[in-house]
């Protein structure tokens, strides 16, 4: 019933603890938005979920795989966890189509025809069918990010992680990316995102989590948290960004 179970997660870099005992359970189909001041550990928390950062303590279970266990085949688990980055990180030497077909083809999950068929339908879904043969540098930021979402979806993940997906975009391109994310949320994708898009959080998120100094300070349904923050730190933070 829980897609992601995080218990007592600790992450330290050198001397300081970035995450200080995080407990967070995410249900299937739930959309969770993580907010917090810079340096609060929100990206680190997200990156621990697919082990781009290795947890220093505690456990994270995704899809019944305990990813904090060094014995687990991390490559296998990551197939089910899509990730979208702030800087898109498309592969610059490949067309949009190749970016999307790379993983399913390299991992021998689909043959060429099947992979391309899926890629085209994903490109259509993000509104970029006509850009299949374009290289990333020929695309705008918003288009690149939509290709990046399609690339993550090509693996048929059942959890999607978004690390500030609209922070590197020009303002006029934010909407197109959020639109794709909204439709994903509506279809029941389990999503965890680090984002300060309050409008999106209000519309699509089931829960907003306020993180500060490596701990979850407060969590609530979006409208409730924004309108009626309980904790002093949450109030201060929301005052600054709203």
């Amino acid at each position, binding site marked *: 019933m829980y897609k992601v179970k995080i218990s007592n997660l600790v992450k330290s870099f050198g001397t300081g603890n970035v995450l200080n005992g995080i407990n967070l359970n995410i249900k299937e189909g739930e959309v969770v938005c993580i907010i917090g001041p810079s340096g609060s550990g929100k990206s680190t928390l997200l990156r621990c979920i*697919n082990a*781009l950062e290795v947890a220093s303590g505690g456990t994270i279970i995704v899809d019944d795989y305990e990813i904090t266990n060094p014995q687990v085949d991390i*490559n*296998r688990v*990551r*197939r089910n*966890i*899509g*990730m979208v*980055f702030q*800087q898109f*990180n*498309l*592969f*610059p*030497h490949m067309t949009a189509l190749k970016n999307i077909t*790379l*993983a399913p083809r*390299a*991992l021998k999950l689909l043959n060429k025809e099947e992979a391309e068929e899926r890629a085209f339908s994903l490109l259509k879904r993000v509104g970029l069918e006509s850009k299949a043969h374009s*290289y*990333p*540098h020929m695309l705008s930021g918003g288009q690149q990010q939509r290709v*990046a979402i399609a*690339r*993550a979806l090509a*693996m048929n993940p059942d959890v999607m992680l978004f690390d500030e997906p609209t922070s590197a975009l020009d303002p006029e391109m934010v909407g197109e990316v959020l639109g794709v994310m909204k439709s994903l949320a509506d279809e029941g994708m389990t999503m965890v995102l680090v984002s300060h898009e309050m409008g999106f959080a209000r519309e699509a998120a089931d829960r907003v989590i306020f993180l500060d100094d490596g701990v979850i300070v407060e969590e609530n349904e979006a409208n409730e948290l924004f309108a009626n923050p309980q904790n002093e730190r949450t109030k201060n933070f929301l005052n600054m960004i709203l």
Partner: protein
Amino acid sequence: MSYIDLLRESWPRLLQGLVITLELTVISLIVATCLGLLFGLLSISKNKFLRGIAGFYISIFRGTPMIVQAMFIYFGITGATGINMSAYTAGLITLALNAGAYISEIFRGGIQSVNPGQMEAARSLGLSYSMSMIRVILPQAIRMMTPALINQYIITLKDTSIISVIGVRELTQSGKLIIASNFRSAEIWFTVGLMYYITVYILSKAGRLIERRMSYVQSKNK
């Protein structure tokens, strides 16, 4: 004897020398590029021991003159172990190991210049480290490495002349032998120099062409 007659007389031997020079260059660079890839990867490994091996190899071959390396491999190793090795083989080994050390550093630099986000994106799709390296990182790294790599290839082509000290009859040694019999050192060294120059010229033009071919996407992406 006029310069033309001199050329006509010594041309076959010079050409033979050039062929040996090219052979040494091509074979040693193929081996050196493989060594460079291998040790370049080792030098960025998380494993301290593997990094140590790469660091040791690179520092030895960058830290000593190639002429000493050639002497050591040909006279030193054959003398100390009794292994029979032709000067040609010893020369090939020297060139490959020497260029391999420099090319390792070129690979390391190339790989490290690829945005770390590329590896993260590949890994987050479920690709293994080696698969990500092969499909995502190296194609980008090699594109950035091309100018440095071509430069090293040119240096190695010219460094084959050092192998003449152990008696391999490549272009420089052929020139020396011709001069020993006719004492026409100005004309012969000029000709030898010209032959190196033309070969390097062709190689660098080819390099430019390859560079241009490969730069279709990197240009605007930074």
